[in-house]
């Protein structure tokens, strides 16, 4: 029988589990039922009692590694904590959220306990061919090839992508937590804080309903023969303010900032989506002034509803990839969109 351990960690507030952790818990509960596996949930954090109550209703054994050393997302301490939890359970399967914190350490933890890791898992299911066999779906070649994999070796660590299932919702009685002791190695790294990019304001919002994708067309010559980068900046930032959208950008536009070409000053590589950038998950996406073919479009592979504004009706970004393509000047359209959204926002206030 498989022994499933779901590893979780607390969020920055220190008092709750991250949403991605709760999604991993939901996945664990579902798979444990399908495989008839035992399930244990491990928590890492400075304080874990309050966070553990979010696991009410799982009826799972809950273990915790806690203490000030685990307030920081640091490789040496997190790896020691996760290793201790895996060993305490004797886990054969380990689910964990693919957060920055756990993606950093989980492969190393797997190596320490003689296991193997697969990451960016978007789905897990009981295999149809063999009973009691887990199968996992993930992408290769930057979201261009999809595969379903199995592992015969154990323990098998799976890092689950955030946003691929609903988080666990607690129900029922209080949760009892067992503490697992950890012997820490000498710590040579100290986390000193979190820094937002120097871009004036926050433009990346992972929980936003809409992803606004800015393409290189914003910095190209317009019908009057001039570049209107300043106007483009104002329009895009205004759109983000009135719509609370997150901002993504094509590689070509981000790269321009490193090549001394006309740039949108608030863009950094963190905004980049696609082949060498992120593939964010949002319910809706609006692409503007983007161009390019299939390899570039992976940036919005995980966007559910997609619309595009482009002057090119045959744009590879849009044809066959977007639900709606507006053949129009994005400068004019977004200016009017901003006006309408601002009116709507004001009315709602």
């Amino acid at each position, binding site marked *: 029988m498989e022994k499933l351990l779901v590893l979780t960690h607390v969020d920055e507030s220190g008092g709750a589990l991250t949403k991605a952790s709760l999604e991993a818990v939901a996945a664990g509960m579902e798979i444990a039922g399908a495989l008839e596996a035992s399930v244990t949930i491990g928590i890492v954090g400075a304080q874990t009692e309050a966070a553990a109550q979010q696991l009410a209703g799982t009826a799972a054994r809950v273990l915790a590694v806690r203490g000030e050393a685990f307030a920081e997302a640091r490789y040496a301490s997190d790896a020691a904590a996760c290793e201790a939890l895996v060993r305490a359970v004797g886990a054969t399967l380990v689910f964990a959220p693919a957060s920055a914190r756990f993606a950093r350490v989980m492969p190393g933890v797997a190596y320490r306990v003689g296991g*193997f890791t697969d990451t960016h898992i978007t789905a897990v299911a009981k295999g149809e061919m063999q009973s009691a066999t887990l199968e996992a779906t993930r992408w290769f070649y930057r979201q261009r090839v999809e595969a379903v994999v199995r592992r015969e070796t154990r323990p098998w660590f799976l890092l689950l992508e955030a946003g691929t299932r609903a988080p666990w919702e607690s129900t029922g009685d209080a949760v009892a937590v067992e503490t697992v002791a950890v012997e820490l190695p000498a710590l040579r790294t100290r986390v000193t804080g979190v820094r937002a990019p120097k871009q004036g304001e926050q433009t990346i919002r992972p929980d936003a309903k809409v992803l606004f994708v800015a393409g290189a067309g914003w910095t190209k010559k317009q019908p009057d023969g001039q570049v209107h980068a300043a106007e483009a900046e104002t329009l895009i930032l205004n759109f983000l303010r009135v719509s609370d959208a997150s901002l993504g950008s094509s590689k070509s536009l981000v790269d321009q900032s490193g090549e001394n070409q006309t740039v949108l000053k608030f863009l950094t590589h963190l905004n980049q989506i696609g082949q060498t950038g992120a593939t964010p998950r949002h319910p809706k996406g609006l692409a503007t002034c983007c161009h390019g073919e299939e390899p570039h479009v992976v940036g919005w592979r995980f966007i559910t509803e997609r619309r595009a504004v482009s002057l090119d009706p045959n744009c590879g970004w849009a044809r066959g990839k977007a639900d709606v393509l507006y053949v129009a000047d994005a400068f004019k359209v977004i200016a009017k969109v901003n006006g309408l959204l601002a009116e709507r926002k004001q009315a709602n206030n």
Partner: protein
Amino acid sequence: MANSFHIVVCASIVPDPLQTLEPAAGTGAPSLKNEIVLPAVLDPWAACALYEAANLAAKHAGSKVWLVSLGPKAKLQQVMMTVAQKVPFELVAIDGPLGGFTDAHSTAAALAETIAAIPGLDRARLLLFGGWESASRGAGVTMQVLGERLGITDQFQGVDQITVHDDGGFEVLERVEGGRHQVSECAGAPAVLGWATGNLAEPRNSPQIGMLNMRGILPALQKAKSVKLEANGLSYVSVSLPRQQRETRVVRDMPEEEIASEIVAWVAE
């Protein structure tokens, strides 16, 4: 030497991102159709790591950069013709399979064995660089396991910046959720840094650097050790391309006001 580093950059080669990819099922792990003839490039994130390594080495006298790359010798040679012109490094080649369907733990084992055998490498001054993920397997596993195998437990992933202090310690900026960076202070080498894009532009080609690098590259390719990568129990149930094709409604000749109203209604739904 104060604050000098031995920087080992691990970089695979991947198909040029502009190529059309089609998976092909085989008897073992799958592969890409015509993989061996697809034009290849140095993995983009690993290339960023290489440029950052060269930049760091240039700032700290006595530092040295090795580029450790696993791939078919002929492909490595082809890619090195371009890469060699970018920044100074010493190539350590490993003759092995190409592609994203191999197991990351096996790759890490092959790399660890090779790096441990590099003559003159000072492990106390070692900074192990690489991309935080590759553009082929894209797992984000190899660097961590490699670090563990070499006994390095100060590890950073999604790195965009390293700033070395006078005492040999350094500040690292790692990408975390929400488009932000986690800031850490590390006491110094050895450490593992899996790079995201960093902040440097791609260096211009330099024929002089190319000539110097090529003197070492051809001998390194000739003595490249062959490795076979174990599957470690990994098998593929299916491999496919996403076939999702949307029926795009193309809207022409609609006034901007109407388009804006439609978009606003859609955003607000």
